[in-house]
């Protein structure tokens, strides 16, 4: 039995780091960078440890720990609200993902000059919230951390982000930041209401998730409340038609924030659908999943088409994220073991892949100050490594065997064909569209005649190479040896109520 202190460390270390950043004097930018890199490395190490020490065939929730936080007061009974942490096989890869992307993000942000201590303070609070949501086993704290992860976004985007100017209109960073914040927080209204209703209905005086899982909610109640959780969490997962914050927000955000947000935060939404939706209200899930399937399919197809129409690197990736998150939702909506497995695999795969995409775009944008792919040409002659890494991420995204995307998408489609063949067919069609937009971008910007206008571009910095190599390593890891992931995920997915 492993100690729950490891999980507490993943939440506490970044939170404390965020506080420490505030105390470092403004002009000691290097101290901020080194401390952040160290925190990132430690978190990465802990996350890897936690992932590998998770014992397949062991308890349902491992690394479990509980501290009473607020109990026996007001309407709260024993264990009313407790700092309960623990992970199952679904959360384990998510913890690993957070470690990888947070470490990468900390390294990529080395270049930030403007008030970098503020940036890292908010960044680490964000990371803390993400870890907390993945590991919380208390309904109150699940939502607490979920909101913590949303809280710093406004400032992160509005202060350190970039605005986009299009021929006919402009998207300022303040606009995108506000849109993202308001849409995500509005969505959490639904989760809020759902939580109030669940607590009141159960009447047990506790927010402990394991206690609530054991409670049999009335089927009618489940059918009413389930949509609240699915739409509330779905907005963060980029659920169509509530995805519109995502491309704008990710485009405007600074590189590390895009990495973390698209790579990890959107997974919180999908994770919430599992933890709050499927686990808490299984009958509601069975009832509503066909509806989710329709929306998810729209996600996949719409995102792919929209990505094909973009000429801004980041918008293309943003819409491709919408499409790929659609695959996650599609996997969840199948409610069968293969499909849900695939959804969780896709959460990990998309996380590292998107982080890689955004890191690469950041590398070129910081020098060229444009992301218009039609302006570039033949970049491979100038930045071969950049093209290599970007290309690998692209290939993973279109599902090339040997990379993580293939494993994940294969499972999702396998699951979808079992229950909803039409959705599986449309999904595969959209996956083919992925090839269209990825290859289109590569032929447009990376290959062909080199445009001399960009002869001043430098190859990626060492830190960027390191980050890219780290992310690439995990793409290959899952692509070539998926067993550690599948073993962990499958076992817990089988335990999900209502999943057959």
């Amino acid at each position, binding site marked *: 039995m492993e100690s729950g202190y490891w999980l507490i460390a993943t939440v506490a270390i970044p939170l404390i780091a965020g506080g420490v950043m505030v105390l470092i004097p403004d002009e000691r930018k290097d101290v901020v960078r080194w401390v952040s890199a160290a925190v990132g490395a430690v978190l990465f190490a802990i996350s890897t440890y936690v992932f590998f020490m998770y014992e397949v065939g062991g308890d349902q929730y491992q690394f479990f720990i509980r501290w009473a*936080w607020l109990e026996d007061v*007001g*309407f709260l009974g024993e264990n009313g609200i407790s700092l309960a942490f623990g992970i199952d096989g679904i959360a384990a890869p998510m913890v690993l993902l957070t470690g990888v992307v947070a470490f990468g993000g900390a390294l990529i942000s080395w270049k930030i000059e403007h008030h970098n201590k503020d940036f890292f303070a908010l960044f680490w609070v964000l990371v803390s919230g993400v870890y907390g949501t993945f590991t919380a086993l208390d309904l109150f704290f699940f939502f607490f951390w979920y909101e913590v992860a949303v809280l710093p976004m406004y400032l992160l985007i509005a202060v350190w982000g970039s605005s986009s100017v299009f021929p006919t209109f402009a998207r300022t960073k303040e606009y995108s930041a506000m849109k993202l914040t308001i849409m995500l927080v509005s969505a959490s209204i639904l989760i809020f209401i759902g939580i109030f209703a669940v*607590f009141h209905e159960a009447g047990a005086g506790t927010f402990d998730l394991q206690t609530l899982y054991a409670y049999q909610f009335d089927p009618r109640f489940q059918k009413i409340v389930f949509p609240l959780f699915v739409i509330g969490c779905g907005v963060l997962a980029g659920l169509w038609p509530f995805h519109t914050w995502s491309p704008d927000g990710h485009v405007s955000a600074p590189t590390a924030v895009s990495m973390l947000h698209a790579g990890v935060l959107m997974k919180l939404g999908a994770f919430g659908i599992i933890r709050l939706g499927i686990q808490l209200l299984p009958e509601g899930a069975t009832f509503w999943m066909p509806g989710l399937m329709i929306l998810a399919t729209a996600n996949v197809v719409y995102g792919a088409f929209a990505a094909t129409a973009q000429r801004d690197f980041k918008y293309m990736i943003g819409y491709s994220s919408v499409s790929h998150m659609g695959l996650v939702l599609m996997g969840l909506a199948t409610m069968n073991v293969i499909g849900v497995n695939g959804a969780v695999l896709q959460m990990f795969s998309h996380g590292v892949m998107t982080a890689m995409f955004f890191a690469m775009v950041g590398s070129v944008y910081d020098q060229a100050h444009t992301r218009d792919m039609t302006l570039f040409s033949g970049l491979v002659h100038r930045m071969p490594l950049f093209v290599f890494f970007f290309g690998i991420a692209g290939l993973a995204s279109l599902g090339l065997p040997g990379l993580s995307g293939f494993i994940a998408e294969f499972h999702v489609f396998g699951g979808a064909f079992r229950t909803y063949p039409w959705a599986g067919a449309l999904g595969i069609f959209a996956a083919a569209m992925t090839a269209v937009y990825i290859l289109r971008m590569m032929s447009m910007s990376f290959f062909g005649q080199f445009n001399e206008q960009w002869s001043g571009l430098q190859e990626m910095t060492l830190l960027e190479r390191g980050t890219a190599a780290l992310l690439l390593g995990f793409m290959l890891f899952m692509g070539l040896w998926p067993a550690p992931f599948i073993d962990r995920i499958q076992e817990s997915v089988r335990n999900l109520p209502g999943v057959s």
Partner: protein
Amino acid sequence: MTEGLNFDYTVFIPEFLLLGLAAAIVALDLAYPAIRKQWLAYIAGCGLLATAGVSLAWIDVETNFADLVVVDNYLTYFRVFFMVIAAVVAFASADLVAQRLKHPGEYYGLIIVSTVGAIGMAGARELMTAYLSLELLSFSLYILVSYAKFDRRSNEAGMKYILLGAFSSAMFLYGMSLIYGITGTTYYSGIAAALGERATDFEWALLMGLVLMIAGIGFKIAAVPFHMWTPDAYEGAPVAVTAYLATTSKAAGFAFVLPLFSNAFQVVHDDWSWMLAGMAAATMILGNVVALQQRNIKRLMAYSSIGQVGYLLMGVAALSHASASALVLHLTGYMVSNLALFVVIIAWVHMNDSEEIADFRGMRERAPLLAGVLAGALFSLAGLPLFAGFVTKFILFQAATDDGYLWLAAIGVTTSVISLYYYLQVMREAFVSAPAEGAGPLPVPLLMRGLAVAMMLGVFYVGLYPQQLFDAIDNATRFLFV
């Protein structure tokens, strides 16, 4: 009739101390006009804190004064609560009052006297006593609002406030007299007993009495539709008085309402809960929506505080022991956050001489510590986690849900999101907009920095480890439901 009543004046020792303190400060200012005026603030603040310490001696003591005033943990909690608020406001006004206002002695004296009124409202268990305390608080505030004698806005605000305040007092009195007509007593316990023994379930006189009393209280706490004076009074008053209006005057209303409804009118809960629920809904929606339009920080805070009153009213409408505890918890968290924010606003407005939100720009560059506290306080008011607002709102809304008001909780969370929008607008000026040309770093006085940090620590305390505080509150409100 005085047989068996307890006339033990020692229960009022904290109040006597406060009155003595007020008199001493006025006398000091009069006798030594050359004294540095900041010292008056320090003496007032320290005296208030010391008296708060003295009043801790009544923890777990249960006694009363002639059944008019009850001393129990509930009163002790609010004694400390109001004295600490007054102390913070006194410290925060030190520079502002010394440099911008005349007669500082009376200023602090009035703050202290009004605190006695607020405490009386929490302790009273008899309508006339409660009314007198209410008026003691209100009259002090009328003067304080118009304290900037040569500022037209301040005069206008004072005039509006006193006219509407007098009007609302009249309504409240009329309501009281109707209740007295039905029950034949002004004691809360007597009212409850008389209402419980009535033959009929419904009486127009009772309903009228409740409507008038609720309207009167609605004016005092600025609940919709009785909120119209708030933005003008907030805007016209000197900014430190605005802070005081937004804290003590609001909190006193709720400290008064809780025992009134739980002790006197709980038996006829169905007759009034719908009124308060409707008012809560309207207050949350109107306050938060109109706040979107504001360009002046004081008016913004006025509407934001109206919105907050809506959340608090939810707890009164539901009124059970659990929701009363939740209400006081939220009230406490809200006051701490509000004070943190007002410390920043007082410091900033005093140094920049502008109340426009647009002039908050560049605060991150010019006064980083204030900007940090501003961000924390705004997040807390919007109800985001790590800060007090999240957990207190969550518990309040959950308590309302448990008492059958899920729809109010739904309106509450929705309007909280609206509030996030306008709070973020302030943060945007402070963090995203560049400072005006040539505006350098501001020398924030050490006292203000210390206060801001102290209040922020309070916000974190409530937000991250509320067990002890909530236990204390739960214990205090238990006395209302014996």
